């Protein structure tokens, strides 16, 4: 594990991209950081993600654009989306590196499109919905959720943390939509989605452990 970002005394190693031994940066670790950002808005977790990804994105963007300023814009826009939209990441669809790559791919597409100055051209999100809330629930994800039987949910949901249980009970037992739960509890839709996702992950673990 990498250490918490020191508040005042920034040690010189801290920003070096090779400061953490590469074996620490597993996809699971990166996914855990994304979950911390999504659920707790953890700045420390985001700083660690940023340290890992920003220099890689810059390298990618420089190869794509050959223009340093545009490359930096791509890095900033990509990581800004990671900070605000971490709840849209779903481990079932791929690794954090793949998810962040698809965000960068979309931003690159839109930068190239805007340089052609045609407002009506198709946007990256229309082609590859990576960051659209309503499109992020692919049929695949839905299919996976369906495999968890109601009965199994009812026998395990007591073992979930309160916040996750509340969401799961509303959706799977009371049959409400994620939007209704969001309105009712007064929490953002994104939070409902990430709690559902984390809860289903947990339930899956519980169910498999028992099989």
């Amino acid at each position, binding site marked *: 594990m990498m250490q918490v970002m020191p508040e005042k005394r*920034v040690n010189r190693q801290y920003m070096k*991209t090779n400061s953490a031994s590469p074996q620490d940066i597993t996809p699971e670790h990166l996914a855990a950081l994304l979950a911390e950002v999504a659920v707790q808005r953890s700045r420390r977790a985001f700083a660690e993600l*940023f*340290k890992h990804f920003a*220099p890689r994105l810059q390298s*990618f963007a*420089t190869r794509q654009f050959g223009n340093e300023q545009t490359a930096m814009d791509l890095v900033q826009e990509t990581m800004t989306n990671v900070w605000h939209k971490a709840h849209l990441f779903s481990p079932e669809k791929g690794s954090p590196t793949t998810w962040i790559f698809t965000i960068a791919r979309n931003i690159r597409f839109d930068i190239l499109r805007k340089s052609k100055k045609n407002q009506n*051209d198709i946007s990256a999100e229309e*082609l590859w919905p990576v960051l659209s809330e309503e499109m992020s629930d692919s049929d695949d994800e839905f299919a996976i959720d369906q495999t968890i039987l109601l009965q199994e949910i009812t026998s395990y949901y007591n073992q979930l943390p309160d916040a996750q249980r509340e969401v799961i009970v509303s959706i799977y037992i009371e049959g409400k939509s994620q939007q209704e739960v969001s309105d009712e509890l007064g929490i953002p839709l994104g939070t409902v989605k990430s709690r559902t996702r984390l809860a289903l992950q947990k339930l899956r673990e519980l169910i498999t452990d028992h099989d």
Partner: protein
Amino acid sequence: MIKFHPNEELLVQYVQGNLDSALAVVVGTHIDMCQHCKAHARDIETHLSAKELGASTDFSELTMQAMLEDILNSAAPAISAPQQILDKVTVEGKQFRLPPALKRVSHRLGDWSKVPGSVWRAPLKVDDHSAVNLIYMGAGASVPEHTHRQHEATLVINGTFNDEHDRYHDGDFVFLGADHRHSPQTAEEDCLTLAWLDAPLQFTSGMARLLNPFSSLFFK
């Protein structure tokens, strides 16, 4: 069973975001319909992301710290207003469900118009330099034999058509190279396809357009 798929080169360009946008809609729609290509595209995504984000550059500490602060203090990016989404299209009294990739761009679909030979078309306005259309062929319809100097991609959304080479069913993706000659037709079953033609500009003006009956499928 889907028999015809985009080749790997097309899938790679699709994942990279380097494919012509209108062709990307056709390939994306095929991926929606084809589990095989969906898995293949995901594999490509995994490999490509590991490769593209595998190396890092030296990033100055100051720049990095400043950008990090900027991001942590930024407002959430605006969510663009959702567009009108159509679940299905209706042509000649028949309804067809749209795969997700087409639903997402359904607000770009123009009106249906009739083309000689029991064929209807509705243009999809993806950008100003691409030609992609939904083409509906009634039962027993035929498109005049044609060659093209461009590439042509056809995806069967629903139904069956054939040409002198083969028969094509739901999900089949047919990519024809330049100077390829064929004449698509339907038999007892009708057929809805999504068809893309490369570099339409040569067709859009003058005699070539009037002389080529095929061009009426793509251009008004």
